[in-house]
């Protein structure tokens, strides 16, 4: 699946997007954040406050308990500040 990062999540991870194959056992957005956090210092820094991180699956906002099965594109970003 494709992952996208925006704003300070993008800056901390050091990538705007990447393709990953999460291992079995990663079922939800929360699981995915926990798995990503273990991939290195930049990820650990980006996801150090998981409650602050917002997520979207295929362009729709989702909560941490949302299932990632079948997702094509998952995005992580801070709370929005547009308008």
């Amino acid at each position, binding site marked *: 699946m494709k992952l996208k990062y925006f704003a300070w999540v993008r800056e901390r991870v050091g990538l705007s997007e990447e393709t990953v194959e999460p291992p079995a056992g990663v079922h939800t957005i929360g699981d995915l954040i926990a798995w990503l956090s273990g991939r290195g210092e930049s990820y650990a820094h980006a996801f150090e406050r998981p409650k602050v991180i917002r997520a*979207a699956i295929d362009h729709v906002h989702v909560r941490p308990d949302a299932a990632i099965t079948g997702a094509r594109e998952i995005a992580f970003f*801070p709370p*929005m*500040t*547009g*308008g």
Partner: protein
Amino acid sequence: MTAIITVRIQEADFDAAREIAALTKGRTDIGAVVSFSGICRGNDDGASIAALTLEHYPGMAEAEIMRHAHEAMARWPLNGLTIIHRVGRITPGENIVLVVTASSHRQAAFHAAEFLMDYLKTSAPFWKREESGAGTSWVEARAHDDAAAARWTKS
């Protein structure tokens, strides 16, 4: 006549008067137009701002705005609405966002414009980075914006 929804995300500036004219041109069913322009301030809580840079999530930003545009259409008797959000670097005094709502009567137009702005602030995927003398920093989301959006979910 059918209601027309226009949603644009662009780097270029917009002309609010031209957008209002485009929405109402040739129509006699519109009795009220409300327009809101969000403009870049030169200071935030006393700190001087040199510029804002707006980042967005292409694809989702358009989809999220369109979702709320359709919700506004379902909640109020609107004849049309236009939403324009700029991205890129914006300096103080420049436009950031425009919401124009048109209806037969003023109440629907006022309410829909406020509803759309409240949701643009809290659920459309845009992020502001501020440039000041001290460097650059991401703008923090504000609790009062979440509270403003939440009141629309109460019956």
